[in-house]
């Protein structure tokens, strides 16, 4: 996926939103900036298919170099698919965070939160400020 076409949460998750069956579905993952800061990844716990997500709330967990971090849902909705191969191929997050590194697909049930997501220039500005 083209990073310039994605939306980003302030907590460093990305979302690719597309129309599907009359609604919107977001494919979500973790940004390259966050992956680089986390360095060597060792565990990823995926959300469960069918679980509900709330924008800004944790929906997964990841461990790198003895550091455990929550992964926050960028959108509100229902998890309809997860990248089941990813926990066993964590290098995909480093190699290809915006395609092979996708975590889940979420059917959006409340679109109001999308306005809080950043476009790429705004997200890059935030990353520069964080150093």
């Amino acid at each position, binding site marked *: 996926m083209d990073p310039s076409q994605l939306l980003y949460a302030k907590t460093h998750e990305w979302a690719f939103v597309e129309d599907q069956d009359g609604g919107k579905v977001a494919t979500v993952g973790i940004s390259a900036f966050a992956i680089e*800061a986390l360095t060597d990844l060792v565990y990823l716990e995926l959300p469960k298919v069918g679980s509900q997500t709330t924008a800004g709330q944790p929906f997964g967990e990841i461990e790198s170099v003895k550091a455990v971090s929550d992964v926050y849902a960028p959108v509100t909705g229902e998890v309809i698919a997860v990248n089941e191969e990813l926990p066993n191929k964590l290098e995909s997050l480093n190699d290809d965070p915006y395609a092979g590194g996708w975590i889940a697909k979420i059917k959006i049930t409340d679109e109001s939160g999308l306005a809080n997501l950043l476009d790429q220039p705004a997200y890059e500005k935030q990353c520069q400020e964080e150093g």
Partner: protein
Amino acid sequence: MAVRLIENASHRGSWNMAVDDSLLESTADSLTPTLRFYEWSAPTLSLGYFQKYADRWSHPESSDAACVRRGSGGGAIMHDQELTYSYCVPTADPRSTAVTGLFDLFHQALIRTLKNLGVTATICGNPHKNDGDAPFLCFERRSSVDVIIDGYKVCGSAQRRGRGAVLQHGSILLARSQKAPQLPGITDLASTQISSNALQKAWLQELSDALSLNFKVGQLTEAESTSAVKIERERFAAAEWTEKK
């Protein structure tokens, strides 16, 4: 920057972990860092967040010890003859951004402290990558930021990164525990006695210099204590949490 310093006595493992998590939550709101030193009232095995509970039985020496599951990563630690620290810092502090940067600050300050006390310790550097599963015990694992004496790890740290704050806690192995006899401590390796209090005092000075922080002795707030009671009951003292993986 002012940092609250909490110097606690020994506590049970579930309380120690609950206080650290309570501080992680409060730091995101207060934006005031807290450094805490503590010990353990009984030998306690802590599992890394993602470790399997059943794996504790692979280490028979600690099988009769209390057990808690940390919120942080890494391997299992037998908390017994050690000094433990935790540091909660807002993510607004740029030094919290890189995972290894915060490890390095504390560990390099510890190495300088030990040098001043006559003990030579080093950073692990680039460890040999083990192709198999990581050892159960944290102190039998190696990461580039660990503190080493004569090839033995004497200090390791782990983090839980929350929204708005980072918790880093770690253990300094002072002496060999009967419940983890394969792990020598500083006293065993350096043939010198360093008390927990003496190490804490000297390390604090080095940390003050390294972080450019002014430490001010304080206590948990009432809200933090109340939160820790709840966190302990719901998570760290609950079998559902300890045995959940």
